[in-house]
Structures are given as C-alpha cells and as structure tokens.
C-alpha cells in the first residue's frame, strides 16, 4: 500500500530472530512489518508489561490474548506511543518509533481501534473516515479557507475514496449519519474503517468483537481476513472470543501478568499447559 519501497529494501537487511516471532518460517517468507524487542513499562512501582518481544509478518494476522489486566491494551498503547515504554524497542518497517508522537507513529504506519470505542461522535460517519485520511490530504491552510479549485478537487477525491472504503464494509448507506448515533456493531466497524483510512502497514484491533452477537462476530471474522487480503497489511488483534482468535489468527502470543507465557500457532497455544492454566482453564471454570 504505502512505503512499499521501504518494506522491500528492509527485507534484504532483516536478520530473522526465530525465537521472537510467533511463526518463524512464515515470517521469514513475508518479512516482518513490526518487530518489538524487550518492551516493558512501569507505572510507578507496578511493572505492567515486561520483556515483551514479538515479530509480525507483513501480511500476518496475529492475536494477543490473556486474562483481564494482563497488559494487552498497555502493549497497544506503547506500540502507538500513547504510553512511552520504559524499556525496549519498537521497529516498524525497520525504523524505530522511539521519540515519536502518537500522530507521527500513525503516519509511520500503525493504526488502531480502541477497547472503549472512541469515535468522533458529533461528526458524520463520512467525516470520521475523512479524518483518517488526514495525513494523506495535502491541503494548505490557505486552500482550506479559500476553497479554490485544488481544494475542491482534493476534497472530492477524499470523499470518493472514503465512500469506497465504507462500501467495502457495507457502510455506504450510513455515510451521512452521525457517528455517535450508530448502533454498537456499526460503531466498531467504523473504527476499523477509520483506522484503515490512515493507510497503515499494520492495524491493531483492541477487542473488536466485544459486545457483538454471533452473526456480527462471524461477519467481523470475514472482515479481518478481507482486510489482510485486500489491503495486504498485517493485523494484530486483542480478543477474548477464543473461537474468533483460533479461527482467524495465524500466530498467537499469550500474555499473563505482563509477561509472554507462550507463542505459537493456534493449535500449539490450545495444547500449551501454561496457557490452559493461566487463561483457557480459568475461563472454562467461569
């Protein structure tokens, strides 16, 4: 999509670290888009995440799971520099995100959705998507005020691609609705559309199926695959719905008390005793 050349030039330089990736062989095939090494953060005395290392392939769908409070959302917040990590490095397409603002990280190619939906609720659905295209619209302040020929052309183009993106998720009929007035499932979908509008190389989804009914969830699973196939980008998702995780994710990392306790394919994770004890087992008891 974007930065294609960067990705290519990086591919040749990359030295794979099999122990870090969830899917060693396939990662080498695809080349990592995101490489995280020994990431950690302390909140005062509390170490929320420690020694978190993963690598995610260019078009890989990966999952980050773990019990409540394990530190999953905190990882997303560090990846987008909402929180500054205390330790470790994050490399996106071979470039470090250290010292960058959240807005700059977005421009580098990491997009995300939020566990607690964060839409621009008083703006229209279409405008929400257009804000996603913010960094890719080059309109000067002067043009924004004068509304001359170039402004109109750029604005028209932005509307068209935004509508296309909405259409891709069957939301074109809602374009003029106010974002805050959408039903819950559509709000979650809109967050994904808005994130895709930033033209990322990886999209982070924080509990995208939360609060969805089974039919919405299966549609979401379709959409996640569609995102990878059509946009050729990587997906990293946090999810408590094990059915979704085991079905769409190619690689999974399990977090418990801020530490990775297992990494691997869905079948490896399902058979891992530590995971069953920490997470799957406990959920079964409930």
């Amino acid at each position, binding site marked *: 999509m974007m930065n294609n050349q960067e990705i290519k030039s990086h591919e040749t330089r990359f030295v794979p670290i099999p122990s870090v990736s969830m899917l060693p062989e396939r990662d080498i095939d695809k080349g990592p888009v995101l490489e995280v090494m020994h990431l950690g953060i302390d909140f005062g005395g509390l170490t929320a995440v420690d020694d978190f290392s993963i690598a995610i392939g260019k078009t890989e769908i990966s999952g980050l799971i773990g019990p409540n409070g394990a530190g999953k959302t905190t990882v997303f917040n560090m990846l*987008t520099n*909402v929180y500054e990590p205390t330790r470790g490095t994050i490399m996106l397409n071979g470039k470090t995100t250290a010292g960058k*603002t*959240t*807005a700059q990280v*977005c*421009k580098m190619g990491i*997009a*995300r959705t*939020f566990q607690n939906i*964060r*839409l*621009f*609720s*008083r*703006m*229209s659905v*279409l*405008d*929400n998507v*257009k*804000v*996603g295209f*913010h*960094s890719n*619209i080059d*309109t000067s*302040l002067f*043009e*924004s*005020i*004068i*509304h001359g020929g170039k*402004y109109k052309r750029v*604005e*028209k183009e*932005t*509307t068209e691609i935004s*509508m296309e993106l909405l259409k891709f998720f069957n939301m074109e009929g809602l*374009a*003029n609705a*106010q974002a*805050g*007035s959408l039903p819950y499932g559509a709000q979650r979908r809109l967050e994904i559309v*808005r*994130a895709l*509008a*930033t033209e990322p190389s990886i999209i982070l989804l924080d509990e995208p199926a939360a609060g969805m009914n089974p039919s919405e969830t299966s549609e979401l699973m379709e959409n996640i695959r569609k995102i990878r196939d059509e946009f050729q980008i990587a997906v990293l998702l946090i999810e408590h719905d094990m059915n979704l995780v085991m079905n769409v994710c190619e690689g999974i990392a399990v977090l418990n008390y801020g530490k990775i306790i297992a990494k691997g394919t869905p079948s490896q994770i399902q058979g891992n005793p530590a995971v069953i004890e920490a997470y799957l087992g406990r959920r079964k008891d409930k």
Partner: protein
Amino acid sequence: MGLNEIKAKKNDLITYGIVIILFAIVAVMVATGMATRHMQSILVPVCINIILAVSLNLVVGFLGELSLGHAGFMSVGAYAGCLFAIYTADILPAAVRFPLAMIIGGVVAAVFGVLIGIPVLRLSGDYLAIVTLAAGEIIRSVIINLGFTGGAAGLKGTPQDSNFIIGFVVVLITMFVIMNFVNSKHGRAIKAMRDNKIAAESCGVNLNSYKLLAFVMGAFFAGVAGVLYGHNYSILTADVFDYNRSIEILVIVVLGGIGSIRGSIISAIIITILPEALRGFADYRMLIYAIALIVMMLLNSSEKGREILSKLNFRSLGSLLKNRGAKKEVQGNDE
C-alpha cells in the same frame, strides 16, 4: 459530492442569506430615515459583537476549549490598529489606512495568540479557562501602565473610520473564513480533537499545532473586531476590555448555540440590541448573563435538560428560523 457537504453548503448559504437580508433591511431603514440616530449608533457594535462571537465560537464550539481571554486579544488588536492609524493619519487615505489597520490589529493579536497559546494550550478545561482569563487581565493592566497607549486616560485621535457598511463587509469576511475553515481538512481535525483527543491523535492529527491554529485564528478576528471598535469612538480606554467583556462574548456564543455560527450571529444581534431596547436591562446585565449561563450549563449537563434544549431548539437559536433538520443536529450531540 456527498450529501453532507451539500447540506453543509446549503446551511452556510442560508446563514449568508440571513445576514445579507438583515443588512438590506437596515440599509433601507437608514436610507429612508426610519432608523433613529440612536439605532444607527448600535449598528457598528452589532457587527463587532458578531465578529467576536463567531471567532470565539471557533475556539469554544469547534475546538471545544473554554477561552476567557477574547477581550484581551480584542484590546491588543484595537491598540495596534489605532496607533497605526494615528501615526499614518496624515500620510495614508482612509481607504488604505483603515483596512491596513485592521490587518495589523489582527496580526498583532494573532502574534499574542501564539505567545500566550504556546504555554497555555498545554492545559485544557477549567485550567485553560482560568489562565486565558488571567492573560486577558494582564494585557489590560499592561496597556493601562504603558505610555504610548495613552495609559488610563485612554488613546485619543484615532480617525473615526468605522461605519456600518465596513462593519458588514468585515462580518462577511469573518463568516467566509471561519465557515470555510470549519468544513475543511483543518476544521475536521479540530472537530475531531474536540470529540476525542486520543482518537484524533491516532489518526495523525498533531494536537498541539491544530489547537494553536484555532486559538490563533480566534485571536486574529478578535483583534480585527478591536480595530473596528477603536475606530468607532473618539477615545479608546483599556477598561472596556476587562473580563466582563470576555464573558459577554461567551454568553453570546453559549446562548446562540455552541458550535452554531448562525446561532452566534443571531445571538450577537439580540444581546447587543437588548440593553439598548430595554431600560432596566443594562443595570442588571451581568446578573442576567450569569443566570443565563448557569441555566444553560445546568440544562446541558443533564440528559433531561438537553432534551428540553433540543425541544426549544435553544442550543442553536438560529435553527428557530429553519426547523427542518435542526432537531437531528441537536440530538446527536450527546455522547
């Protein structure tokens, strides 16, 4: 073009239409001698308050930050523009001098907007309100204590170039700039910040620079309004730019409907005329403003209250003139 853009454009055209029709009515009244001298004397103040309210609405309604320093920027602009006009009174013809004075007043106010904005905009909410209030008061006391501003005695000798037609033209320019801006990429970024800061940042919006941009644009037009003001009276004193003035502008914005440009315009007209029309009103003005503000805040802070407001269509007073579609606009505002 999307339906929303067509709607936004139509909405803007209606606002222009209302302003132009009102202007035409007043112009006819003045020409036919129907307007009394007293009525004519408040025409420029009406224009000034419209400019102030529309520009403050950019900060309060679209950026979503409470600024109580608008009168401060107005005074900086007024003094800069008036001093320029006094020094060039013999050199430049009025047709050149006055527009130049307005640009200078606006730019100087904008520079103050940057100087104050950079440290202050790290804050938000109540803190921002308090610090902008203090900044406005500091500006006022500095002006009173400086020599070249005429100090407490006031600045005399500004050519009285302000008139209703110029005021009307500046109102139109202000509307054009701010209404276009709000519907652009830049305006979207600012509205996005208002709705959700973290999400806006995650979409690549640089929060600090857009916040500063909205703040500085607001300051620019406050400065221009100040120059209009200074050119309307024979003497300019800093006292008129105290925090009461800032609060008056805020009252206009809140009563007109936060985020509604048309509402701000209509509210500015009413609030400027009211003290002139009702004898008792002027004495109790601040008291009535305070009560109006408290009532609006209370109504806005509860679900029921917002319902009542949307029923009354009070939130955007302007929508009284256009009921269709207005309800929807108001309902969706709730989080």
